[in-house]
């Protein structure tokens, strides 16, 4: 640890930290462009100029490329430093088109914020502006490039070099004609290409999927966790009036850093299309109260042993817990399993894992049988009259097998997010919420318990969380102990019973998640084989660290 002084504030930071990181992690404001916490330092924007006291007098240097040393005295607000920062920003603004009204980055643009702050509204330029040209170039499956807006921070180049290691981008030409471009014949189509638009400090790189769809200041952000695979990358759901416009990665230094794969990033449309919309009882669309009532009547006449439950690794931990509890208290817990017949997807050594469900580890944590061979064999024999199918889609995964297994079941009660083939087969169908519309937790492949929060309330009040639906059913069946008010209360009750979750409450889970002891990891840590990141973080990121 090194003891340094920034603007008269004495602080202690780890050795090897750079000055910029030390300042940012101690709430000292220091503008920066090209510096990205998880990318190598380039030091080319010069906006983080600081004044450092030295034996030969004070000197100006960039904060990002200067490592701290014991006793260092740094000034970020001195007239000299301020003037240097200001001139660097003026330089960046010199040829930048101020077309913020049409630029999609407006509202989250670093340059725009600094332009507004430093008030350099009119450039002190007496030569004509130079236009690089190249507006809205299509450079990849998801990416548009606007040469004019680029400030040549090289964040995107460093990203494609360091993380996916595909190196499609480079700076071509020199001097004032220098610009970012793709290599001839290559397109920016790697599996992580979307990240370059997040790290682009200006509107040079934009996502086709988000371009012109919504202005960023209308978006409401909610902490969430990606549902796309067992990695569970941290992300924010950005929506306005119940319409999701994008997923953005959320910083978690221990998991996904600030990255996210394109597959997960563009999965947002999946959660708002082809949704199961109405409660269906037989062939009629009815309301939730009626449906639960009918189901309770149905279940009352059936021996508890003839009811089976099929859970799913796509359900949240709370849903699984309530289902398990219901089967323990009312039916036979042996008749509960979670066979999920999906096919493994592609994996890589960056973030993606083969298991494309978010919560298979959660099933293990609660002791679910993830194969359910015995149960399915008994099912095939026709031992069960009613099957409670939560989030699972056997008919969608393998119709022939599903027909064989579930053919003799009298009534399939389906809780589903989407309008799947299983929904079509269901005797009763209850639409439930996606992970975006509810609170809950997942356990990822590396045994990290992660919390996601509700982004918005669905329009139809009959669409409720699966855990709440199961609690409603339990109450309708007059089973004691299901007086949950919301998902957090389910979690808190579960934490008291499950050994691995002892001591946790829903709100005390850190936003970056917590690794559960006693649950073996089933996947490699992310970024395996990728060069160790060069920047030492000023302090461990807790909660709001995505500002950097």
């Amino acid at each position, binding site marked *: 640890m090194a003891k340094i002084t920034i603007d008269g504030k004495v602080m202690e930071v780890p050795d090897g930290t750079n000055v910029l990181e030390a300042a940012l992690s101690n709430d000292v404001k220091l503008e920066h462009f090209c510096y990205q916490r998880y990318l190598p330092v380039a030091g080319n924007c010069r906006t983080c100029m600081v004044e450092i006291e030295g034996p030969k007098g004070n000197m100006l240097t960039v904060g990002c490329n200067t490592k701290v040393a014991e006793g260092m005295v740094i000034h970020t607000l001195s007239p000299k430093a301020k003037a240097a920062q200001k001139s660097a920003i003026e330089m960046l603004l010199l040829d930048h*088109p*101020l*077309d*913020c*009204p*049409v630029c999609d980055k*407006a509202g989250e643009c670093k340059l725009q914020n600094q332009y507004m702050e430093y008030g350099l509204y009119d450039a002190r330029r007496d030569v*004509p*502006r130079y*236009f690089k040209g190249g*507006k*809205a170039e299509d450079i990849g499956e998801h990416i548009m490039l606007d040469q004019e807006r680029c400030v040549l921070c090289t964040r995107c180049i460093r990203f494609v070099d360091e993380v996916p290691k595909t190196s499609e981008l480079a700076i071509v030409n020199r001097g004032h004609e220098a610009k970012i471009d793709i290599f001839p014949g290559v397109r920016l189509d790697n599996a992580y290409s979307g990240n370059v638009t997040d790290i682009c400090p200006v509107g040079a790189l934009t996502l086709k999927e988000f*371009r*012109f*769809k919504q*202005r960023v*200041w*209308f978006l409401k952000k909610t902490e969430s966790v990606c549902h796309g695979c067992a990695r569970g990358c941290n992300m924010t759901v950005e929506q306005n009036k119940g319409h999701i416009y994008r997923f953005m990665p959320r910083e978690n230094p221990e998991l996904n850093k600030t990255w996210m794969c394109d597959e997960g990033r563009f999965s947002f449309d999946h959660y708002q299309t082809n949704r199961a919309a109405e409660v269906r009882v037989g062939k009629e669309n009815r309301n939730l109260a009626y449906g639960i009532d009918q189901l309770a009547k149905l279940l009352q006449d059936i021996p508890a042993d003839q009811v089976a439950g099929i859970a799913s690794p796509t359900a949240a931990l709370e849903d699984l817990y309530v289902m398990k509890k219901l089967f323990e208290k009312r039916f036979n817990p042996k008749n509960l399993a979670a066979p999920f017949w999906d096919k493994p997807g592609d994996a890589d050594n960056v973030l993606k894992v083969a298991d494309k469900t978010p919560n298979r580890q959660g099933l293990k944590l609660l002791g679910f049988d993830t194969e359910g061979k015995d149960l399915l064999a008994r099912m095939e024999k026709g031992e069960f009259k009613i099957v409670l199918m939560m989030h699972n889609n056997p008919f969608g995964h393998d119709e022939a097998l599903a027909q064989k297994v579930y053919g003799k079941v009298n009534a399939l009660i389906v809780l589903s997010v989407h309008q799947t083939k299983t929904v079509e087969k269901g005797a009763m169908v209850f639409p439930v919420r996606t992970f975006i519309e509810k609170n809950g937790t997942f356990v990822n492949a590396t045994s990290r318990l992660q919390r996601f929060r509700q982004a918005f309330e669905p329009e139809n009040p009959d669409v409720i969380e699966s855990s709440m639906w199961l609690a409603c059913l339990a109450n309708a069946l007059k089973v004691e102990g299901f007086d949950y008010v919301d998902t957090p209360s389910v979690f808190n009750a579960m934490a008291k019973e499950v050994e691995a979750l002892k001591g946790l409450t829903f709100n005390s889970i850190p936003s970056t998640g917590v690794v559960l002891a006693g649950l073996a990891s089933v996947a490699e840590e992310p970024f395996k084989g990728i060069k160790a990141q060069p920047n030492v973080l000023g302090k461990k990121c807790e909660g709001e660290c995505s500002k950097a």
Partner: protein
Amino acid sequence: MKVVERTGAQGAEKFYLIAVVQGLFLTLGHVIKNLFNPKRMSVVFYPEQKKALPPATRGRHRLMKREDGTPRCTACMLCATACPAECIHIKAEESPDPNIEKRPEKFDIDMLRCVFCGFCVEACPLDAIRMDIPDVTIADYTRESLVYSKEFLMNHDNKDVVTGYNPPRPVQLTHGPHARP
């Protein structure tokens, strides 16, 4: 701090009836004068006679056009952002003109929600929306017909209206070929 005693009515005033009768006779005077000389009432018989609108009237919105007839609007949504009534609904799309980049595919103003504050006009960086069509009697039979579409808002001859709501307009267009030196 000074405490002021509330005195209220005093003396004869306190005995309301006198004041009441005085008031009654005041209005009675008006009645008699108006009954026998109705010409002294300054009334405009509205649909037949119309008063000229004052020069600062904020009228109906219109979308200004470029010389080629396309909307000047670039769907930047600043008007929708400034709008306190949330009555402007814009959907942006890619423009075929490479100099323009973005244009409104849909630009609806819900006149039933509009409060005529003029913020949209002041927010517009391109002078694309003005509120100077001197029409203040906006009424219709259905809700739908009062949601004005882009086509309806652009249905005018693009001339400057002098007697209208005329806040200072941007001198230079900040985007597109106009912005080039």
